[in-house]
């Protein structure tokens, strides 16, 4: 193995970190350079993550010691199948969102493009760092890098954004504190911060009160970070008022990364047997998650703002994934991990579509979308595909995760969860068909007898449209080939004991 191959894991985060500091310097000299520089940085990151994922596929998990310091003293990057899947997901979606952001930024945030690109890369670094690191404290650092840059990015949005961002700051910081306390407690009793090391030491200490408290603190902290009902209150405002490209990035990825951390700690740091049997965590989580699904859907029904509707659907989707994790069996966890991937793609696609509509028309009210299928046929085509996927219509990818979640709920012998999952599909059908009806169907006066209303095509710019279409095609392909993803990645993620 040569030198270059060895160091790809660190390239995933270090290049973008470096570039996020370079961009202000270059931007001060020439503003136009920011966009290509950011794209180069994330492309390198994507390339590295693909190589890393490829190696994980063929040679198993990779351990990378930062600065050559061996764990448990040094910081370790540990990339197994779950991390590899997540890192490819994070980098590829970030790249697509970044490509699409140019026009939206010019329109929504003129003169602020330098800080935007810099913060964007910083946020990306945080997200990518979270999914590659194998160290509890290092994870906290990356979590805060991601959160702080997210606060800043949200705050430069619309008029009400600073207030929303402030609420996010308060709650997010509380979440981070809980997480940090939990790491501290674990460090007190074990003297270690390395995840693999903790996994070895902890089983002897499972009955220690400190460990139990640490675990509980962790769950609360991460529940705030991933906006699990009833700790979701910061999310709708923050994501609605953020600038379009920002919400397209954080909406699909931020919460998903939170759920990733939860899976990682529940099943990789602690033993699955601990997380399931010592405390009634999974029972509580699964019921909270089912309530989250219902509440998220019902609140979404009450929205007339398309973007705000999507944010409430996010709350439901988080519930969906957490339910899969909390049912704790092979099928359910497979469904949950698959849904992380699928939902990230669907949400990114939907938020980008909202960005495209905002860019062209400046409206988000779903009752003002009339004639949109003639103005923006491609965008609306992609919207229809994403919407059908959200409802769980095969062969779009949303169906396949739903399928596994239903199998998992049947395995768990809990018919109420089966009903909740099926209900959420119907709710999504109402939500999205309401939009589709408004966008596609013209009032009868437009064609019967009355004058034909001429609406000329006015499609979004290519830099926005192409990422949207790539994602729409991706939704279908991901669905058809979901079996491949499961056999290549997800089957290794599920703990053996399931």
């Amino acid at each position, binding site marked *: 193995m040569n030198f270059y191959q060895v160091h790809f894991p660190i390239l995933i985060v270090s290049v973008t970190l470096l570039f996020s500091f370079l961009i202000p310097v270059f931007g001060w000299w020439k503003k136009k350079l920011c966009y290509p520089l950011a794209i180069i940085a994330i492309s390198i990151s994507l390339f590295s993550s693909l190589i890393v994922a490829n190696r994980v596929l063929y040679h198993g998990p990779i351990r990378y010691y930062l600065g050559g310091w061996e764990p448990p003293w040094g910081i370790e990057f540990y990339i197994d199948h779950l991390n590899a899947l997540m890192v490819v997901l994070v980098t590829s979606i970030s790249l697509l969102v970044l490509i699409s952001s140019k026009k939206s930024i010019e329109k929504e945030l003129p003169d602020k493009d330098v800080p935007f690109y810099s913060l964007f890369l910083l946020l990306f670094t945080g997200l990518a760092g979270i999914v590659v690191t194998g160290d509890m404290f290092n994870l906290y650092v990356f979590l805060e890098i991601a959160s702080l840059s997210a606060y800043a990015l949200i705050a430069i949005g619309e008029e009400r954004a600073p207030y929303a961002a402030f609420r996010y700051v308060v709650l997010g910081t509380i979440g981070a504190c809980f997480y940090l306390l939990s790491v501290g407690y674990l460090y007190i009793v074990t003297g270690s911060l390395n995840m693999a090391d903790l996994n070895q030491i902890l089983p002897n200490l499972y009955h220690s009160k400190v460990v139990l408290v640490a675990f509980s603190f962790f769950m609360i902290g991460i529940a705030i970070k991933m906006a699990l009902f009833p700790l979701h209150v910061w999310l709708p405002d923050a994501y609605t008022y953020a600038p379009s490209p920002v919400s397209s990035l954080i909406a699909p990825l931020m919460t998903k990364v939170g759920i990733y951390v939860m899976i990682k700690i529940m099943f990789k740091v602690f033993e699955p047997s601990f997380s399931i049997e010592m405390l009634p965590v999974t029972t509580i989580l699964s019921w909270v998650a089912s309530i989250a699904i219902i509440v998220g859907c019902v609140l979404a029904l009450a929205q007339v703002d398309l973007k705000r509707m999507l944010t409430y659907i996010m709350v439901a989707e988080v519930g969906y994934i957490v339910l899969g994790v909390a049912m704790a069996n092979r099928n359910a966890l497979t469904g949950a991990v698959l849904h992380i991937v699928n939902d990230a793609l669907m949400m990114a696609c939907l938020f980008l579509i909202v960005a495209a509509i905002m860019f062209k028309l400046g409206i988000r009210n779903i009752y003002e979308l009339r004639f949109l299928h003639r103005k923006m046929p491609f965008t609306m085509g992609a919207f229809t595909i994403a919407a*059908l996927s959200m*409802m*769980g*219509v*095969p*062969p779009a990818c949303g*169906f*396949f995760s*739903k*399928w*596994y979640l*239903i*199998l998992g709920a*049947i*395995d768990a012998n809990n018919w109420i969860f*089966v009903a909740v999952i*099926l*209900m959420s*599909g*119907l709710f999504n*059908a109402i939500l999205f*068909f309401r939009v589709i*009806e408004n966008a*596609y*169907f*013209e*009032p*009868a006066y*437009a*064609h*019967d007898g009355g004058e034909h209303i001429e609406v000329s095509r006015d499609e979004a710019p290519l830099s926005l449209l192409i990422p949207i279409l790539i994602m729409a095609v991706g939704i279908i392909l991901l669905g*058809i*080939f*979901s*079996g*491949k993803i*499961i*056999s290549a990645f997800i089957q290794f993620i599920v703990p053996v004991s399931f």
Partner: protein
Amino acid sequence: MEVIQSIRPLLAVLVSAFAGCLILLAGEKNRNIREFWTILASVVKFSIVCSMIPFILEGKIIEYTIVNVCQGVSLQFRVDAFGMIFAVLASALWIAVSIYSIGYMRGLKEHAQTRFFFCFALALCGGVGVALSGNLLTLYMFYEILSVSTYPLIAHKETPEAIKAARKYLTYLLTGAAFILFSIGLTYYLTGSLDFVAGGFLEGHCSANLLRLLFVTFIIGFGSKAAIIPIHEWLPTAMIAPTPVSALLHAVAVVKAGVFCCLRVILYVFGPELLFDLGMWLILAYVASFTIIVANMFALAQDHLKRRLAFSTINNLSIIILGAALLSSDAIRGSMVHIAYHGFMKITLFLCAGAIYVKTHKEYISEMDGIGRQMPFTLGAFTIGALGLTGIPPVCGFISKWYLCLGSIEADQLIFLIVILISALLDAAYFFPIVYNAFFKSKNGVYPKFDEASSLVVVPIVATATFSVIFCIFPNAFFYFLDMASISVQNILGGV
């Protein structure tokens, strides 16, 4: 049984989806090219489907696996004789409907024709996909594609009523789909397999009561599309759609897919023996009989021609389900051929209703006095269809009803024989007044002059009516419907 690997089923399904893309590309500006794609796709699809008939008649099965989904389940096509009946029916009638809808849509100068033809092609993709699927998951996939692609067709007029009807349709069907998904999940949990097996594969996997529950959820799910009373409401409401769509709904793809799936569940998932042991066949037969009689009584009361036809469809769908529920060989054979024959007869009736609407803008039966003199070809075809649905030779409805009657005698259930006969009487009671008034009644003794709709509309009508007659005289003509039904029955009942 010999299994052949071939890509043909995939091509047969995808050809219309591909055509859909070409239709979108052509758009309203190149309408002739757009219609060319529709016709070409329907002909190509039909020939691909027909090219598979010889293998099926030799008792072989054609298989094609697209991709593995989860352990023991793939997206897979598996063409057997029963699936072939439905595939041939759908693809053959698509040609007729395509030609007809060009005449119809242009005749009425309808809007959004591109969307109409696109969704139509997609619906056929779903319909033939349902027919050729090899397991429940694949079937569900195409079933959903079919449901969703029909939605814009029903809402086509975009009036508040049309949108309401489309919403109602979606509500019923998506709720049904949730039931189906649950049932499929449970089946997979119990058996670890979803592949159709002639004669069923569920036996001995769990307690009888759980199986009964599973059967009920399956039938509620697929029954929502097969419009079993009391979950039939969407179908008459959906009559607001343009006539080619109603024809598609009733004769070609949508509700036929519903009964097709019901039969798949009855015969290929549960199997006759298991259903007999569970005692569910009798309950289903009573539910179906109730639907048969009540639907026909509703039909008597309708003045709107298409609504009357809609209730007649509900009646016939339940006759098909009744046949399968009786579980005797002749009854199953009868219900399978009735899927095909009813398709040809019902499409004739709907296309006639459409032709009358295109020409005279009349929708109500009470306005149609004397119209037979004006449109003799159309109403002649209508008469043939009506005779056929009543079960009078020489129209093919007689053949299927004959087998159904034999089947109910074979099953020792004379009460269902009486149900079938009463329903035939009621059929006569609501069809023949239309025919009589059209030819022999007139306003003020003046008969209108000969004035037919355009030939694009009339030719398909005459063609399907002719086929309906030919199928009675030669039940195996062209497509070997009866032979294929016999092969299926043999596979299911094991050589009886």
